[in-house]
């Protein structure tokens, strides 16, 4: 049930400025530069000051092989444009070379996007943020040992795996214009992750995502696909998104949600034929913000960079529940946003091929499948282990035991975010209450 807005959400935002410098090749539609444009809009809208901004470390080889096969990641690590002749066979095997070119710094690019999603997942797990944003991630086509659709490593799967350590059920929602095939495939046989994808289907990449594909085995009915046709508008999209997602939230009761915000479902995208504006796209983000569940927002597709930047900056504002002016602030890439220099897009005039009859039918079938799904599948429960063991590695214990006469290191002090309801003026007012309250907090959390 949607929870009424109460108070701010802590929003963690992950960005590494290297990401804009990777270059798929001349004429390639995927331009990582769009993430830098987004970042500049976020700064110049004054949203940055309300975020918690982190630069994540690149993901390591071991972290990426939690999902991907070792020989695939090894290949990504060692192959480069200079030595690709040595890797002809592997390039075919791993589908690298055509729409997924082998470019300079490819492995680092994968490390950054995966690192961002891993960091976001850990931040949510530790309950240090309510919403975690990584516009560098969302590369949903990548398979276990195969690149696909401009995606090489699947940061979403890695992030979800991290979330599963602390969450019983994770919901993955994909509003990219393309089917979220990589994530669906990875979790096709489990009920611990439910995947829901809204996408164009029929004569369109990647060719999967039919209505009847609902998962197999234990995961049967835990994959939902909502195939749509060209030119869908804001109203039509929401008319099918809201009822389906409301029912999913009710029935599945996820303890964490991952939203892939691919911006190629916007009007005017170079590859996507949908007709959404920022408002219709952003409505999906605010839908999940209204539920008080830990939310991870990821990037994804989006091949008209100026609209991608608009969309993701707007959705950052939605996460913060901030109104932003329609007039774009001046920024480093201001001239990209001509001729309107406005934030919002005008809806396209294209024909909406999704008749209300068609949408009704699709919705009916999806809801039918949902009915067959077991509600909130129970997962094996174990007694909560002894606190003492868990405290061994917990830094908060060290802080509690620390000599109160010695100032803690700045990095520790900075990580203390005072709760808004806190009455004290200073950190050390009176006696050493700060440390006391920390001790209680840590104990309560671990309980």
């Amino acid at each position, binding site marked *: 049930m949607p929870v009424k807005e109460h108070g701010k959400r802590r929003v963690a935002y992950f960005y590494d400025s290297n990401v804009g410098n990777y270059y798929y090749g001349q004429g390639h539609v995927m331009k990582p530069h769009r993430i830098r444009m987004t970042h500049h809009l976020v700064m110049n809208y004054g949203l940055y*000051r309300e975020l918690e901004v982190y*630069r994540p470390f690149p993901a390591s080889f071991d972290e990426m092989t939690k999902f991907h096969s070792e020989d695939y990641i090894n290949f990504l690590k060692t192959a480069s444009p200079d030595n690709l002749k040595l890797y002809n066979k592997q390039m075919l095997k791993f589908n690298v070379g055509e729409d997924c070119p082998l470019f300079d710094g490819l492995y680092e690019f994968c490390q950054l996007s995966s690192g961002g999603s891993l960091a976001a997942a850990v931040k949510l797990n530790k309950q240090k943020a309510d919403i975690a944003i990584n516009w560098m991630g969302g590369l949903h086509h990548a398979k276990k040992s195969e690149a696909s659709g401009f995606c090489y490593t699947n940061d979403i*799967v890695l992030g979800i795996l991290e979330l599963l350590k602390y969450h019983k059920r994770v919901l993955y929602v994909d509003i990219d214009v393309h089917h979220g095939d990589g994530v669906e495939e990875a979790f096709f046989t489990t009920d611990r992750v439910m995947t829901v994808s809204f996408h164009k289907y029929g004569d369109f990449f990647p060719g999967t995502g*039919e209505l009847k*594909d609902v998962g197999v085995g234990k995961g049967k009915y835990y994959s939902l696909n909502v195939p749509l046709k060209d030119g869908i508008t804001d109203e039509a999209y929401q008319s099918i998104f809201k009822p389906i997602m409301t029912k999913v939230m009710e029935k599945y009761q996820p303890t964490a949600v991952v939203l892939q915000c691919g911006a190629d479902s916007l009007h005017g995208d170079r590859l996507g034929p949908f007709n959404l504006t920022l408002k219709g796209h952003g409505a999906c983000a605010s839908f999940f913000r209204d539920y008080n569940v830990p939310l991870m927002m990821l990037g994804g597709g989006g091949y008209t960079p100026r609209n991608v930047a608009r969309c993701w900056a707007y959705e950052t504002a939605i996460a913060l529940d901030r109104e932003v002016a329609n007039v774009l602030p001046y920024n480093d890439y201001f001239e990209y946003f001509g001729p309107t220099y406005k934030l919002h897009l005008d809806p396209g005039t294209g024909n909406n091929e999704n008749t209300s009859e068609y949408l009704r039918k699709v919705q009916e079938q999806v809801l039918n499948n949902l009915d067959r799904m077991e509600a909130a599948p129970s997962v094996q429960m174990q007694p909560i282990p002894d606190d003492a063991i868990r405290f061994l590695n*917990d830094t908060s214990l060290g802080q509690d035991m620390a000599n109160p006469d010695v100032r803690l290191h700045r990095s520790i002090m900075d990580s203390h975010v005072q709760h808004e309801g806190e009455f004290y003026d200073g950190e050390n007012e009176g006696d050493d209450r700060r440390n006391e309250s920390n001790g209680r907090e840590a104990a309560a959390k671990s309980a």
Partner: protein
Amino acid sequence: MADEEHSRSAASDEDEEFDVPDDGYDDEVTLDEEEALGEGAAGADELAALEEEGEMDIEELRRRYGYGMPPETANGTTSIEEVACVEIQTEVASTSSTLNLLSYYEHHGGDDEEDKDYIPYDKKEPRVDPVLYQITVPDFCTSSNELQRDYPCTALWISSNKLEDAMLQLIQEQMKAKNPEIRLENCSMQSDNEDLLFTILQVGYDGEAALKASCENKIQHANLPINTWSRSYSPDGDCEHDVAFSNEEKQMFDVYYKEFGKNFLQIAQKFPERKMGELVEYFYRYFKRSARLEKYVHKGYIKEKDCIDVAENIRQQIKTAENRKSKDMSSLWEGTPTKDLV
């Protein structure tokens, strides 16, 4: 029909692993079609011709069907059509160059008929194999949870109620005023500067200290790109940063940019000591900005000294230009990269 055969034999000839005589299925289809038309004899001729073609050299084949030499652009660059076309061909076991060529001919060779029959994306069934595709998700159990360590991140800015918004704004403004370089970077009033906020965070949200740091030119760079593929990434942030472009390099870049446009692959060849990422960074962060600012300054939209709100300035200019319906607009945006960047 000839077109169809052409593309098939072209594919088989260039790919050594592809065995022509084994390709019985398609031949049968062809035969059936012929027989249905009641031209059995002609069909036999056709078969013979086919076999001949199968043994022919690829270049000879091309000549026969009116194709010249493949343009050089067919390799190395990727147009959208090619990307789109290639995406569906992933199942075709063939070398990448063959793929590239095929897709090129299908779209540029003038074979309209072939394009019509061409189905861009086949429906695909979901693949299920616990070893190859799926991941085994263990049941949830709290006891097996290793205690999670924090994922290593550098905190660049943490919003805090220790500093009120207005105060933060004021400090940022004052810091900007003391750093003309930064002032030019973020011209809008409400904008945040990540370096300034990082400095404020470093001094524990102490406005005085932050101002002092900015006076002493101690602003730290928050999120400088580190070329991870050339230099090691150090957790303490003490990493080597980009070496700034020398004037000589800047001039070189000017020249090559005029020559190659945004083809960084070619530009990179002229800068053997620079990584691709450094060039892209230079282009987007410095080259384009300075060029643009110069243009704005030149046209009188910005007075360099009091650059308070450039955006507003430009908007005003656009408005007056629109009102006059003059050609100023087109001249203003002429040559800006908006078009080729999409």
